[in-house]
């Protein structure tokens, strides 16, 4: 009874409109049809955007897992007194407006930005080169936006490491590499998987970063959806993109959960 208001509210004002929108992808002129999907898939632009989104999702998740792991491992080795403070600095950006966080990259990568000033100043190029509205810009923006989501679960996974497990492996003759590969990595796998899921789904469904740093040149699924609706009133495509986004988000959640709980 007590849980009813919150459930009904979310179902009515959040989930119901979403479900109706998803159904639009399966309709042509009010009749059920899969023609919309066939048309959608056959367009080269849509294919490019789909694979670009997927690629950036994997790339951001992969790179942030390597940098994030090294960072989390370093934070874990700090004296406990400093650990909390540094961890706080990692989490803090999450509380700041993503628009503000992404805008910084315009200042860094723009025509008169720091990077271009350095390139021209060092004589590497006579004119500023285009860094904004490239996949690299979107990649950097996403990496900065979502990196904390990788580090947080990794640090907490490392804090739950049984401290005697490492000592035991050392006593039994394992070298540091073996300790890392056979003890630390398997025991922190869950953190890696949780972080990977958050970063991957976050990147897939990001709007602000591709909108500001990618523009019309580097469309991702969300910016494509926005463009289809605003430019062409194309609700069939909108429904299809929405279905793809939701399927991929839930799919990643489900799949990664299976990996995390699988026995090694």
């Amino acid at each position, binding site marked *: 009874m007590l849980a009813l208001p919150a459930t009904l*509210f979310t179902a009515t004002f959040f989930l119901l409109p979403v479900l109706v929108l998803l159904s639009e992808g399966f309709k042509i002129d009010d009749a059920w049809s899969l023609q919309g999907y066939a048309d959608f898939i056959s367009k080269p632009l849509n294919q490019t955007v789909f694979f670009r989104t997927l690629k950036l999702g994997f790339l951001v998740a992969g790179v942030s897992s390597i940098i994030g792991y090294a960072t989390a491992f370093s934070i874990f080795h700090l004296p406990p007194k400093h650990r909390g403070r540094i961890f706080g600095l990692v989490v803090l950006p999450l509380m700041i407006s993503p628009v*503000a966080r992404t805008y910084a990259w315009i200042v860094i990568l723009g025509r008169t930005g720091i990077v271009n000033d350095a390139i021209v100043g060092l004589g590497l190029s006579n004119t500023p080169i285009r860094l904004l509205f490239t996949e690299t810009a979107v990649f950097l923006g996403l990496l900065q936006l979502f990196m904390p989501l990788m580090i947080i679960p990794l640090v907490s996974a490392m804090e739950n490491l049984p401290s005697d497990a490492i000592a035991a492996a050392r006593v039994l003759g394992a070298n540091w590499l073996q300790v890392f590969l056979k003890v630390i990595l398997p025991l922190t796998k869950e953190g890696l998987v949780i972080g990977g899921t958050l970063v991957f789904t976050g990147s897939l469904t990001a709007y602000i970063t591709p909108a500001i740093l990618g523009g019309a040149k580097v469309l991702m699924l969300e910016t494509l959806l926005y463009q289809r609706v605003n430019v062409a009133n194309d609700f069939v495509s909108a429904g299809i993109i929405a279905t793809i986004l939701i399927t991929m988000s839930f799919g990643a959640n489900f799949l990664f959960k299976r990996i995390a709980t699988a026995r090694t």
Partner: protein
Amino acid sequence: MRKWISLLIIGLTLTFLIGPFFIIIGAGLSAGENLAFPPDGLSLNWYWAVFKVESFRESFALSLFLAVFGTLTALVLGVPAAYALSRYRIPFAETVKMIVAAPIIVPGIIVGLGLLRYLVIPLDFTVSLALFMAHTALVIPYAVRVVTASLENLRSDIEEAAILLGCTRLGAFVKVVLPNIRGGVLAAFILGFVTSFNQVPVSLFLSGPGVRTLPIDMLAYMEITYDPSVAALSALLAIMSVGIIFLAEKFLGFSRYV
């Protein structure tokens, strides 16, 4: 040696994560007309200019309103749900949890478009009301999660004791439970406020002339103008968020709850 490598890695990552804010603050301090870093001379002109932009003032007021009242509504709906989930064996508990958590997983842009197309247009909802609904639903998962965690750390026998001593269920909740979880409720409010205030995708389609949240207004502004005012505004927002979190941490121990 290992220690130095560790410190180097942390230093590089923090530079990547936090460095851009200093660049934003610096770019906003420019005395010139163009967005640049290092800035062309120093002045606070652009920081003052932000307050003179009419649309920024209006959208700030709307964002503030949505963040405060949306989060309060989410708490009114979410606290009872959290109580039910942590104290009773309710039917379909897993389904309820899934529905209530959905706003975190479902991409916001889809929700905004859905609300616009099926609620605002056919049912004559005003855009502001739809925005309010969306921002409330968006915060419910955080409210339920944070408050549930607080409730689970609170022993349920103290409320049983209050009931044995003649309190009603509701009385026991108001007099015994609520004072004990007020830290968690406050933390949920702060987290919800920040989430709602910074939210973009949900509000993207639910914005029209005159009805825009601040982040959407900033996106629209930077499409037409390339001056340091958005940098100055971004810096002010970042400083505001850091200030809120700093105070919440100092007086509440915010990080214990979230």
